[in-house]
């Protein structure tokens, strides 16, 4: 086992996750005093630690703060909105321990959720969320220390964690028995094979990376590389699918249709409205192509590629007819990001090296279906055919807010300009003519002549 300074036992953390790509992977935690056992979803796409704090129809249990002698309410209300769903809770602090994590008890910020909308999905087996992204995304402000920052400072572990999700080829949203590992504080060598390839974190908010190129069946999509990073390209365990910007999604679907052996595939399948079902003895994967994603290497003049086989993006679902086995398309379109979600992450051991501001990918031994690997990683490749920077230097994190604020600023500027012009105009230009302005004996002209 890899040890960090002899203090952290990574082997104890192997297989500490349960779940699946459809409903997420969760870690067991003990909260408060006496400890209350809760399952916590691992999400690298947000930064708050929050748990159900009140009974909810979709959640089997919740954190009862009244029963914890160590809970301390900060009295601040916080709302967090996700791509899907939102919650409102109260900020507080309490102690936690992780039966299959870092040994010890740590005091951390906890939001107890008292109201939520489409956040706890029916049938999920988790009761809270562990946001592992950077504090800049924490709500209500970045001054709320994140779970992992608290752990690093209190447990004195290295500022790095790694994630292996083992749901490849298993039904999405199934029984929740797939496993995985969240290694806090380092890298566990038994969880990967071959070399680790690192890509720089472009900006520390989400785990934002730079994607240079996409290939379907070895054919370059030939899009401007900025299309792949439109707004952001992130690594997010809290998203099930591989989400692609609309233009990229269309190009990928076109390429799959072109290269797959199935022609005139119903559009409903690609948008997720339909499942494709084959006879129980048939497997569809041989009909679909590989998809490769090129990421910028640490050495910026080279790149490496991660490849997912159809076993990862043509995903079996549980809804099987007697004689049919059904699959869904594990890629969707997005208006605001390219997201390397569970569809991709299940193929790799992913290392979030915050200390050195980089994300690593290595082959995961559990990414296999029927004894054959379903992911590949290769490099280095030259970046001579790609722009030197595929990520916009001006980052518009909230584009709609930016547009609204610019519009308001322009409007205020125009009003101000108009008022200044009015002020500068000589008084005679500002005179309003009325019926009383008719030249008569009372008029100023006559009055002046009389003078």
């Amino acid at each position, binding site marked *: 086992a890899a040890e960090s300074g002899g203090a952290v036992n990574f082997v104890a953390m192997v297989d500490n996750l349960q779940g699946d790509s*459809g*409903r*997420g992977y969760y870690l067991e935690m003990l909260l408060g005093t006496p400890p209350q056992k809760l399952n916590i*979803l691992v*999400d690298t*796409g*947000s930064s708050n630690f929050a748990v159900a704090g009140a009974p909810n129809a979709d959640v089997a249990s919740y954190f009862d703060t009244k029963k914890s002698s160590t809970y301390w309410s900060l009295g601040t209300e916080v709302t967090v909105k*996700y*791509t*899907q*769903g939102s919650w409102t809770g109260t900020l507080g602090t309490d102690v936690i321990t992780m039966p299959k994590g870092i040994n010890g008890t740590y005091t951390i910020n906890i939001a107890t959720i008292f109201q939520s909308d489409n956040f706890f*999905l029916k049938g999920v087996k988790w009761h809270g*969320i562990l946001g592992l992204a950077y504090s800049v995304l924490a709500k209500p402000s970045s001054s709320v220390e994140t779970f992992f920052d608290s752990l690093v400072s209190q447990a004195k572990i290295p500022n790095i964690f790694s994630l292996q999700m083992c749901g490849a080829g298993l039904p*999405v*949203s199934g029984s929740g028995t797939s496993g995985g590992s969240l290694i806090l504080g380092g890298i566990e060598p038994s969880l990967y094979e071959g070399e680790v390839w690192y890509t720089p974190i472009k900006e520390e908010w989400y785990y934002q990376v730079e994607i240079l190129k996409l290939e379907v069946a070895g054919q370059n999509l030939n899009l401007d590389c900025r299309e792949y990073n439109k707004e952001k390209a992130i690594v*997010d365990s*809290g*998203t*099930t*699918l591989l*989400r692609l910007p609309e233009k990229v999604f269309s190009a990928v679907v076109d390429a799959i249709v072109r290269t797959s*052996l*199935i*022609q*005139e*595939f*119903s559009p*409903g*399948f690609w*948008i*997720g*409205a*339909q*499942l*494709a*079902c*084959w*006879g129980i003895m*048939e497997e*569809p994967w*041989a*009909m679909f192509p590989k998809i490769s994603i090129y990421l910028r290497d640490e050495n910026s003049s080279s790149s490496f590629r991660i490849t997912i086989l159809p076993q990862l993006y043509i995903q079996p*679902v549980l*809804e099987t*007819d*007697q*004689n*049919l086995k*059904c699959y*869904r*398309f594990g890629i*969707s*379109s997005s208006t605001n990001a390219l997201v390397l*979600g*569970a569809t991709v992450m299940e193929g790799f051991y992913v290392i979030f090296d915050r200390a050195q501001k980089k994300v690593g990918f290595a082959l995961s031994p559990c990414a296999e279906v029927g004894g054959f690997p379903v992911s590949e990683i290769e490099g280095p490749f030259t970046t001579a055919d790609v722009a030197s920077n595929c990520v916009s230097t001006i980052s518009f994190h909230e584009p709609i807010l930016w547009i609204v604020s610019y519009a308001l600023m322009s409007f205020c500027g125009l009003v101000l300009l108009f008022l200044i012009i009015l002020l500068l105009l000589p008084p005679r230009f500002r005179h309003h003519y009325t019926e009383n302005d008719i030249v008569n004996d009372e008029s100023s002209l006559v009055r002046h002549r009389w003078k």
Partner: protein
Amino acid sequence: VASGRCGARFVFPLRVSPAVAPNGSLVPTPVLLKPAGRAGASQEAGSLAL
């Protein structure tokens, strides 16, 4: 064939033509079904997007 196999709940017109694999054999054509319990027919249904 689709309706016979799946019952009325899942009847959808099929627009899939048989294709030929490199070895010359016919590629099996899929039956397309609507996922049960997904009224919104959205890709995100049944998925996390946090």
